[in-house]
């Protein structure tokens, strides 16, 4: 288990150390079972509570190799241009239920904060992959998960809006700083006209959905991402589990 060495304060979220493996967002476990919505954003839900736009925190945590943490929303001001804030106001909830970054970024202050406080490792680091290729078809395109040897990390070779990108990410925290910086400072495809910025951002979403929520650390991911692509990424991770193809990665 790898957690932050000290609390990290970022724009409208706080990341606190955890004693056990697993990330929670406003108390809701970041697991596939708790995914309530996966299309243009990912929401988690548990017993009537909901955390909105969690990929903006899970992505940077995964890029920095964090596998255990408590994420708490800290927003106190409303921005009603955000549909999620309107949902919270409608339910009588506060804006702290929304943990997504206001500018649509994989929160860059999380990565910066973790670089400052450091990460501590406790016990063996889990590495999981798939036993065979998982191919998931979607209206927007196909996504393929292929097995990879233990410790090799995640390789993404994806295309979005005609822009292709190949990136290596190590869920144990050895991802190149330049990659973390570029991904953390790229806006969501829904807020940028730049196909390049959009596909760079998608790497954080892939890490969030496949590595953190899907619990897969050694894998090759290829395919074409469409609009509302969290349906594809969460769908692929779910398919791997539902088909019984998830296993510990071996060297």
């Amino acid at each position, binding site marked *: 288990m790898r957690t932050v060495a000290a609390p990290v304060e970022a724009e409208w979220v706080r990341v606190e150390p955890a004693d056990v493996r697993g990330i929670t967002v406003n108390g809701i476990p970041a697991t596939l079972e708790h995914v309530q919505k996966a299309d243009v954003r990912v929401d988690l839900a548990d017993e009537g509570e909901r955390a909105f736009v969690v990929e903006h925190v899970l992505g940077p945590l995964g890029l920095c190799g964090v596998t255990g943490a408590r994420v708490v929303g800290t927003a106190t001001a409303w921005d*009603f241009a955000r*549909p999620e804030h*309107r949902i919270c*106001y*409608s339910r*009588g909830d506060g804006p702290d239920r929304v943990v997504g970054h*206001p500018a649509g970024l994989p929160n860059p202050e999380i990565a910066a904060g973790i670089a400052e406080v450091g990460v501590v490792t406790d016990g063996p680091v889990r590495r999981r992959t798939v036993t065979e290729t998982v191919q998931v078809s979607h209206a927007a395109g196909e996504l393929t998960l292929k097995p990879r040897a233990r410790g090799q990390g995640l390789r993404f070779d994806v295309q979005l809006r005609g822009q292709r990108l190949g990136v290596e990410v190590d869920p144990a925290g050895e991802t190149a700083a330049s990659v973390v910086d570029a991904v953390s400072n790229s806006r969501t495809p829904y807020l940028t006209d730049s196909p390049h910025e959009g596909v760079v951002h998608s790497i954080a979403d892939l890490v969030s959905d496949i590595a953190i929520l899907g619990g897969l650390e050694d894998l090759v991911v290829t395919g074409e991402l469409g609009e509302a692509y969290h349906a594809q990424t969460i769908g692929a991770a779910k398919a791997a589990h539902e088909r019984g193809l998830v296993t510990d990665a071996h060297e």
Partner: protein
Amino acid sequence: MSVPPPKAVLEAAAETSGGPTGPAVLNVLVAGQASLEPTLIERADGYHGPGAGVLGRLHAAQSAVDERTSVSLHYPEPQFAAAGRWLVVAPTACTLATVARGRGALTLKTEAVGGGADTRLLAHRERLEAVLDRARPRHEHYPVRDDDRGVFCRGLTTFRLRRVQVAQEGGTIVLGVLTTPTTRAREVEGRFESIDGIREARFRREAPLTRAEPDPEYRTAGERALSTVTGDWEYEWLPRPSVFAQIPSTRKLAIGAGSPDETAFGEDAVRTCRDLITALIGALEGSG
């Protein structure tokens, strides 16, 4: 599934509107009014013409309510004094609503302009263009100016030109304003006061923003119904004041299929709307 003729739907509503009363009753109010016009017709695939959505939602509500003794259907005239919870069946595009934006008017007085008629006309036109430019939505991060579907703008204070009057001694520009919980009169006025040629800006609230407070059991029933029918629940604000705001009780929700200004309401939409209402009534009965 085929839909009955408009006349049959409206006649049935006239006969059954009202119904049981009491604190435990769910009052189902169908928003809007459909009238028997030659242009409002039923086809094999649903209703077409002005009022198609209202008629489709009314038929959906009638099918869902049927002869239940725990539900009272209100159409076209709601009995606002009725006790119990309220469900407004409205074009919410399969979202729940507890909030309706408010409405106001911003009156801008412009300075008199000297010179000939052409000069005055040109000056007034330039001021109007400046006002309309200042009225366009703005946001630090989101592409609100291209937001045709209101994804972002639904939550902003928005303006629409209501009236322009030009006279020898100056002019008046009136903007209709849709408000949010963060709309402040001074901010609305201040946004336009600095425009060259504007001598006065006055904002007046016409209808307050409405925020209902359905009890947790009712809210949960709404979320459960939406999840049953669509797979998830979401909330969205009603775009402007409506009959939802007129209901004096705060124990109210709005739900429904379709979008405002639609001129067709297919049988799929009728079925979805009926299923939403049925599921909500069922969830309430199950929780009771």
